[in-house]
């Protein structure tokens, strides 16, 4: 079970072990991570699961697909390390993945 770390908007650190094969968004939602709304439940339709990925981890994630890139382009304060957490599938390789949650989701 890979561990993931969320830094909530107020700076609080939340760390969880999550089953491989689920998404980063699901980990956040199950535990009620502050600032992740994930309204569409992972359909890549709401952009309310936006996170900033720790630059050290960015290159280890599969690239964004077009649909995700399009959502992020007009999301709230997109940055080069922006991702939709519902599009990140957790694997053992991602053990320790660290992301921070934006102050707002749109």
């Amino acid at each position: 079970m890979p561990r993931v770390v969320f830094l909530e908007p107020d700076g609080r650190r939340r760390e969880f072990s999550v089953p491989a094969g689920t998404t980063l968004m699901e980990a956040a939602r199950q535990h009620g991570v502050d600032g992740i709304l994930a309204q569409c439940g992972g359909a890549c339709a709401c952009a309310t699961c936006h996170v900033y990925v720790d630059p050290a981890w960015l290159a280890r994630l599969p690239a964004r697909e077009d649909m995700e890139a399009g959502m992020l382009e007009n999301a709230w304060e997109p940055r080069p390390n922006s991702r939709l957490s519902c599009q990140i599938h957790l694997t053992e390789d991602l053990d320790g993945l660290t992301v921070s949650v934006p102050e707002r989701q749109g």
Partner: protein
Amino acid sequence: MTRPAIHEDSTPPGTVVIVGGGQAGAQAVDSLRRAGFGGRLVLIGAEATLPYQRPPLSKKYLQGELAAERLPFRHRAFYDEHDVELELGRRAVQLDVAASVVELDDGRRLDYHRLLLCLGATPRRPSWPGANLAGVHVLRTVEDADAIRADVRSGSRVVIVGGGYVGLETAATLRAMGCEVTVVEAAERILNRVASPESAAHFGARHREHGVRIRCGTGVARFEGATRVARVVLGDGTTLESDVVVVGIGAAPVTELAARAGLPCDDGVLVDAHCRTADARVFAAGDCARQESTRYGRRLRLESVDNAFEQAKTAAAAMLGAAAPHDRVPWFWSDQYQDKLLIVGLAEGHDRRVLRGDPQSGSFSVSYLKDGELIAVEAVNHSKDYMAGRKLIAERARVDPAALADPRVEMKDARIAPGTSH
């Protein structure tokens, strides 16, 4: 999320009871605790499962790509940590607004200070002969989805009645599972009145490419079979051999509990912009509620994840005394095969439509304007236009139709700066 203490100076309601543990009910729990509500919180849900998301029921869950344990919004531990009393598999049967008491189906009576009705909607069941035959399904709950899954196998002949979102998504999923699928739609086209002709044509073509037959312009006359459905007979006399039928002809708001309590209902429990019913202590949100919309200046009842989510937030805040009315731009999505339809805003009342991009390319959008203002965007496989549209619509931006029609211009740049005439 930790539970902040109750603020002594405010007058928080002591007990909040939520009836209905779906999208809106689950969100209200979250919003109440997040806002610092420290009183007793009870969630009564007729379904035995933890509150869960319905969209996958016609999509990945039905197909077997999303396991049942991934449907709930939150684990049980979340409700325990936040001191939420879950009464699952329990139904509220009686509401006495004068006494502020709700009665459960096991006879218990719960006093409340604030009550939130998140009762959802129930699929319309056809009155055609044979509608009660085995093999005729509707799709609303995980139980319904399981029943359909158990009833179909590769090669099953399936008739889907209704070419709306639930019907078409189910058609796409069952086709991917190897079924022989026919969609029957009484109107002249699929997605009639809920999507543009371009989007409907796009999805219709996709279905046909995948081998789904679509028959528009004829309704169902009856279902035939001994104990199980064997044939669907259409209004024009056509007979379709069928092993399984899924009826997706819309849903009706669940209002009985409220109506019997004397709360005004009219195609939904009537609520104001704060999700308050005629009784100041009773609120309603989600599919069951028909709201006085600040933005649209009329009563609206919407059936969508977004609406349930946002109204639950509004209701939770209002129950705790906050003043912000609900004023969000609604949005919706649908997934069929690998294609995604994204809609933001409401097109009703538009005086102009602008197409962006070539529908033949499989990625385009349709914008709706009213008096120069962008009021809705419908995007097929085009998340960028959808997101740009979301912002422009929320800001009530006026847009330049010529710029909008030109895909080389970014949609966000089609905005006309305030004060400029055009």
